[in-house]
């Protein structure tokens, strides 16, 4: 879940973004993105794909392809008796528009720290190998190229079919950091423990803990303990004699804390959350948004969050009234068979919420 990277230097804000041939998007372009970007839209309209597109491009790291595959509940292949070209292509085909691995994914991201970054992702080299040998003993690589300030970085991603582990060949140029949280209620214990541990070592965990206490004051303390043999987050809860695993307290509180820890840890970076309202009681949502905005501002983090919930959108109003221009609405839609994205900003977005209009 977490890509190893150092704390980024300087504030990084994705200002604009364009991607071609990725998942359902033949081509999309986003401009003037803000600190908090809400993504709405029908099922299968591309909300999660947009988060994945941003993640793939912002990290510029081939490990992102493995991670978003896992977040879609897809495992990596174990050894197969006969690897055919079809079997290989089907492994990564869903990354490409129309499931066509002959296309190249191309993205351009402009951020406030690095300027313009381009990436391409292709299976072109792999296809040559497939032609030469229809049955493969190993899976050919997915080729990532990143272009930044006149320099090109190339990394190949292969899968070791004996261990089903990703293998990287090439230089991974550390870029500003990016974190993605899926919609499911599954928790990556080591991941959360890592987030907390990284922050705690630098005495930076308090803003997130204080933030969650605003809505959940019963959390007296959060710390890492072993649950059997696994390091997990435990909580000391007011009026309880013993410290208990955080998910025993509440899965919603755990997920909310995961988001807060990610924002604190990925300072100057980007945090992407799928279905942000999951697990949070509706009455808490207005203050949750205020807290998220304040923490994003404090940590210079840009947040992209999908939601299906009108309550979640309506709950934005108090936070938006403080700073409407910190917010952007991105709506994914299918128009004439093409996946497109509409953008609305600040005051207009706020007015639509105040109208109680259907904007999802």
């Amino acid at each position, binding site marked *: 879940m977490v890509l190893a990277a150092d704390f980024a230097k300087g504030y990084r804000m994705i200002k604009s973004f364009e991607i071609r041939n990725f998942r359902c998007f033949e081509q999309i372009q986003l401009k003037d993105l803000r600190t908090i970007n809400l993504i709405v839209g029908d099922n299968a309209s591309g909300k999660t794909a947009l988060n994945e597109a941003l993640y793939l491009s912002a990290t510029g790291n081939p490990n992102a392809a493995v991670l978003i595959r896992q977040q879609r509940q897809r495992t990596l292949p174990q050894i197969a008796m006969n690897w055919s070209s079809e079997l290989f292509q089907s492994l990564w085909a869903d990354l490409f528009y129309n499931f066509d691995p002959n296309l190249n994914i191309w993205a351009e991201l402009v951020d406030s720290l690095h300027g313009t970054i381009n990436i391409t992702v292709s299976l072109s080299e792999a296809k040559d190998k497939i032609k030469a040998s229809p049955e493969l003993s190993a899976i050919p690589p997915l080729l990532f190229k990143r272009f930044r300030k006149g320099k090109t970085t190339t990394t190949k991603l292969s899968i070791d079919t004996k261990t089903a582990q990703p293998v990287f060949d090439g230089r991974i140029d550390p870029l500003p950091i990016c974190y993605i949280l899926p919609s499911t209620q599954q928790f990556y214990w080591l991941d959360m423990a890592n987030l907390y541990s990284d922050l705690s070592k630098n005495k930076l965990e308090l803003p997130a803990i204080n933030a969650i206490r605003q809505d959940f004051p019963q959390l007296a303390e959060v710390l890492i303990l072993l649950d059997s043999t696994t390091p997990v987050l435990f909580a000391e809860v007011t009026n309880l004699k013993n410290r208990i695993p955080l998910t025993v307290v509440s899965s919603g509180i755990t997920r909310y804390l995961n988001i807060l820890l990610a924002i604190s840890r990925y300072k100057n970076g980007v945090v992407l959350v799928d279905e942000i309202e999951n697990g949070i009681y509706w009455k808490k949502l207005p203050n949750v948004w205020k807290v998220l905005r304040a923490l994003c501002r404090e940590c210079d983090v840009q947040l992209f969050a999908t939601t299906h919930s009108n309550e979640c959108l309506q709950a934005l109003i108090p936070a938006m009234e403080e700073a409407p221009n910190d917010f952007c609405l991105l709506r994914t839609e299918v128009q004439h068979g093409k996946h497109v994205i509409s953008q609305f900003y600040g005051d207009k977005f706020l*007015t639509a919420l*105040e109208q109680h209009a259907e904007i999802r």
Partner: protein
Amino acid sequence: MDERVDLTWRFEKDRFILCEGIDDKNFLDCLIKQRQLPDFQIMDSNQASGKAGGKTGFWPALKAFDVQAAFKNLKGIAIVTDNDTVNTCLEMERE
């Protein structure tokens, strides 16, 4: 958040009339039915803007209509206002 949280409204027809208040809405409903005019969705500015009724509600309502997903399906919007003063229409246009 108030009690209207779940009471979202959406463009449901391809013709839309925005009027000043509930009395105007009722009148227009009857007129359209009586004259067998094409089907319109009629809404008063208080409901549409979520802020204010009368003429004051027109601008807040119109300002963000295009944020709605169904806005692209609209063929037209008619605004019906009382001609309170000689300058009513001019003021509306200015806004």
